[in-house]
Structure formats: C-alpha cells, structure tokens
C-alpha cells in the first residue's frame, strides 16, 4: 500500500509541477526516483516534523500541493498544533500521509502505534480523513487528491494486503463502497478492518447470503446518507475499526444516528480497540487477534 502510494505521488509529480514531496527521515532509498528526477521538489528534512508541517503550509500558500510523509503518530500527535493552525485553519491543500496506521508498528510499542490517529484528526475542522483498505484504493485515492480542496490525512496500513477494491471501480473520496450488499446483517468498516470484515461476511454467507460489507474509505466527511439508509434496512450492524473505538468511525456513525436515527441504535455493535495503551508487542496480526478483531470473532458476534 505504501509503495502504491509513493509511486503514485511520483508519477503525478512528473506531470504536475505543483506537487512537492516532503519526508522527515524515511528509510534509505525511499522515493529515490523522485529525488533523482525531480530534485527541486523533493525534500527530506530530518526528524523535524513540526517544522515540516510549517514548511508544507508555506509551500501550499504559494500554490504548491505538498505530500508529507512520515510515521502516523509523529504526524498526528507531535504536529497536532501545526496541523490545526498552519494547515487546517487556512484550509490548505496539504496531504498528510501517515505510515503505520493502526497496529502496524506493534513490535515498536505504544510510541509508534497509531491507534488514536483517527480520533485526533477527526477533531480538526476542514481536514478529510481517508483510510484505504488496499493498494488499489490507495492508488486511486492519491490520484483523486491532486485537485481536492483543503487538507487530507491519509492513513497507510501494512503492506501486501489482498486487493479487495479493484473490481468495484467505485473508489472515490467521500463515497462509501458496498463490497457485498447486505440483506440481514452488515459490517461497516474502514481501512484493513474491511479486509477482515469481508472475510467474515463471506464465511457467514457460505450457508446463506445474508451479510454485507460497507467499506468507508473516507471517514471524514462520512457518507452519512448511505450509512443511514442501509442501517434502516438491516437487522444488525457491526462497526469494525483498527483504532480506538472512542472518536473514530463508530463514534462518528453513532453521533450522526443519535441525531437522526435514534430508533435504530439498538442494532449497532462495535469492534475496535479499548481506550488504553497497548502493553504487548508481537506483530499486527497478533495484536488484532488479542483485541478480537478477527474473522472468527466478527462472524461469531454477528451470528450471536
């Protein structure tokens, strides 16, 4: 997914002179093609994330479209104020790409695990939040961001995910995407949680085609229209996210429902992370299992 993301930025930058790439202190060789072919618009500014956001703001004010890439926690936690003031207050077209969204950096501990990023970014006015589920959606998303107004936060997941979005051709910012249309049951999910939800739905549907999956690649602004209309039609909904349950996708849907769809609130269940620091290591899959974000648990919970 990260490769698809960076490669798409590079290809776009070759055609569009407004595109700038700024990294902090990324791994050796990252974006070498960009650096070698378009050195004037390539910046690797070291471990100075706060300044990088300010620099991106200055560049955007002068008409450029900066794509900023570093570890998600460093962007969302350390640079919160810079993102709020330098970027979002001015509604500037800066694209913030956070590496290691969710539990990807499990072995590196709580300083690196971006499980609060969705809650943090959701609190900021003007910014859009995109959480692609695979490399195809990421590629399409990046292509769509070029002429998009205002700031965008894009969460990168782990690499090598199965492609689940390419046969839909419906990848659009702010539009939700039914991977399977529901009859009785529905998973609503974002990011790589949609991969798990899709497998769980397929498992449930082995016996009878009952369960659907609604993937929300954009969680802010949310496609409330589709979400609300489908919730009315099904019997049970489980919202799945690889993030704190507080403040993320589920919170956003419930907030909307508490105003417009109160009588359907009883249908909603949620699977995600508790609001506490994770004290284990291992890898992303181990921590997903530990937090019960699994195909088995999702299907069990849906059929209960």
């Amino acid at each position, binding site marked *: 997914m990260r490769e698809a993301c960076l490669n798409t930025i590079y290809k776009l930058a070759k055609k569009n002179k407004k595109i700038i790439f700024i990294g902090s202190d990324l791994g050796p060789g990252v974006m070498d093609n960009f650096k070698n072919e378009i050195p004037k618009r390539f910046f690797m500014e070291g471990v100075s994330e706060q300044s990088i956001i300010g620099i991106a703001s200055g*560049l955007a004010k002068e008409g*450029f479209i900066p794509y900023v890439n570093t570890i998600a926690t460093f962007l969302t936690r350390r640079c919160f104020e810079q993102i709020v003031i330098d970027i979002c207050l001015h509604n500037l077209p800066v694209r913030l790409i956070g590496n290691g969204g969710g539990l990807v950096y499990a072995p590196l501990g709580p300083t690196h695990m971006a499980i609060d990023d969705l809650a943090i970014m959701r609190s900021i006015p003007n910014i859009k939040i995109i959480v692609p589920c695979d490399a195809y959606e990421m590629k399409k998303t990046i292509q769509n961001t070029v002429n998009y107004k205002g700031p965008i936060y894009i969460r990168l997941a782990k690499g090598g995910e199965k492609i689940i979005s390419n046969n839909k051709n419906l990848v659009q910012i702010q539009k939700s995407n039914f991977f399977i249309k529901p009859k009785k049951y529905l998973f609503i999910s974002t990011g790589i949680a949609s991969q798990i939800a899709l497998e769980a739905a397929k498992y449930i549907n082995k016996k009878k085609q009952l369960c659907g999956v609604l993937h929300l690649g954009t969680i802010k602004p949310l496609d409330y229209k589709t979400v609300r209309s489908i919730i009315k039609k099904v019997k049970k909904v489980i919202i799945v996210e690889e993030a704190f349950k507080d403040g993320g996708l589920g919170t956003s849907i419930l907030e909307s429902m508490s105003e417009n769809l109160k009588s359907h609130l009883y249908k909603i269940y949620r699977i995600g992370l508790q609001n506490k620091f994770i004290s284990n290591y291992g890898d992303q899959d181990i921590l997903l299992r530990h937090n019960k974000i699994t195909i088995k648990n999702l299907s069990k919970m849906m059929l209960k």
Partner: protein
Amino acid sequence: MNSLNKYFYKSLKISLDKRSKYLRGLIVKTLLSSGRGHVGSSMSLVEILRVLYDHIITFDPKKPKLKNRDRVILSKGHGCLALYAILADKGFFSKKELLSFCKFNSNLGGHPESFKVKGVETSTGSLGHGLAIGVGMAIAAKIKNEKHKIFIVLGDGEINEGSIWEAALSASKHKLDNLKVLLDYNKIQSYGFVRDILNIEPLKKKWSSFGFDVSEINGHNIHQIKKNLNNFFKKKRKKPSITICHTIKGKGLAFAENNPSWHYRSSFKNNDIIKMQKYLNNIG
C-alpha cells in the same frame, strides 16, 4: 543585565520622531477602545515594522496578494497591534477599523488572521510557527525563481520553542538567502525577564552556529534598521540571515517601558487610562 545589554539599553533610550509617536498613538487609541491588548510587545516592534513598510518592502494595499510582494510574517502574533497600526496607516484597511479591535464582529482579533485582515500573510498567535511557514515560502520562491523576499518577525520569548530551531536548520540547509528574520529582542517575556526564565544567550553565536548571517542593531534606530535591511538586499550571502533588534519592551510609553507587567493587559485601571490619554495629548 550583562555589559552588552547595558550598553544597548542606554542606546535604546533614544527619543522617537513624530512618525513613531504617531504610530504608537494609533496603538494607544486601539488599546483604549478595546480595553485590552499586548501593550509592551507591540510598542517594542513599531520601528521594525515601520521601516519595513515605509522603506523596504514591495506591497500594494489595493492588491494585498500582489504576486511579487515581499512577504512579512509576524510570527509573534501577539504584537499585532503594531502590525494593525502600520497596515491601517498604509491603507490596507481604514484606521477607524482599529477601534473595533477584539470586538465580536471585528476582523482584528488579539492575534492576526490572514483570511480576515488584508496584508496578513498567515494567521499566527501560538508561538513558534512563523519561521517554518516562512521557510516554506522562501523555498517556493526559489523553486519558482521569484525574487521577492520573506521577512519573519520573531519574539525573544518565542525562540524558546523547539520548532524555531527545527525551521532554522532547514533554512540553513536550503541556503535561503531570500529569508530575513527580525528578532524583537526586548528581553521580557510574559512571566518576566527572558534571562531569568529561559536564557537564550549567547544569541549571536547560537544563530551563527545554525548557519545564519547574524547582525545586531538598535531596533528603535530608524537609520540602523534601514541600513541593515538595505544591506540584506545588496549583499549576496548564500545563507539565511537574522537581525537581532535590541528593543525596549513598551518603548515610547514611559510608564510601561521595560516593565514585565505591561506585557499584556486584559483590562486597564483608571490610572492606566489616564496615563495613556496623557500620552495621546502629548503627541498631539
């Protein structure tokens, strides 16, 4: 006060000319109208901004987004009363508007906002942001081969912020000779004297070691400021530069000079109002 500061402090006690007093008069009227504001932090800035707008930068108040304008960022946004005074004086908006400062529907808040106030390049207020934004603008100018300059006005307390030093590293790395930092070194921050709170000396060596061309001037001496900034345009350096402007907090208002309690006031006592009105009467 070390010997350097003692020397500078004496030289800073110079008397102000009519225009400096007039601009301060606009600030005092604004303060009296709103009953609040960063008094000392604005008064120390007047000559720095005055020289920039009177003699140095390219701008057009009728076309605030003029492509080849020089960019000025007041990173110490709390000094905005001085910026508002000079912008109003130059015709970016009417002087009458100054009297709406901090009122409900005003464009002029306690910190400047670029989408409300013509002539303000970026919204500031929280400290430590302006330099990095200026670095971005200076890089943009280099990429586009545009000749305008970027001026960033920093406060002395402001450079406590780590983000300033991050941005300084990038400014130096990219040899941003189109970037000029003006440091309003009035020696006082909110709680008291900078040297007692978080000493920033040796300032010259510090900025120099960060790759800046450093000069030091009396920040109330019009001729020195003018000469220094003209030099910035003439001299080829291949590095960013900073002018440390020694100033007096509250300069021009005798009762507020070098007095930490005049950094910010959210209300004025009757006695303060009388003193400020007296100042206005004296300058005529």
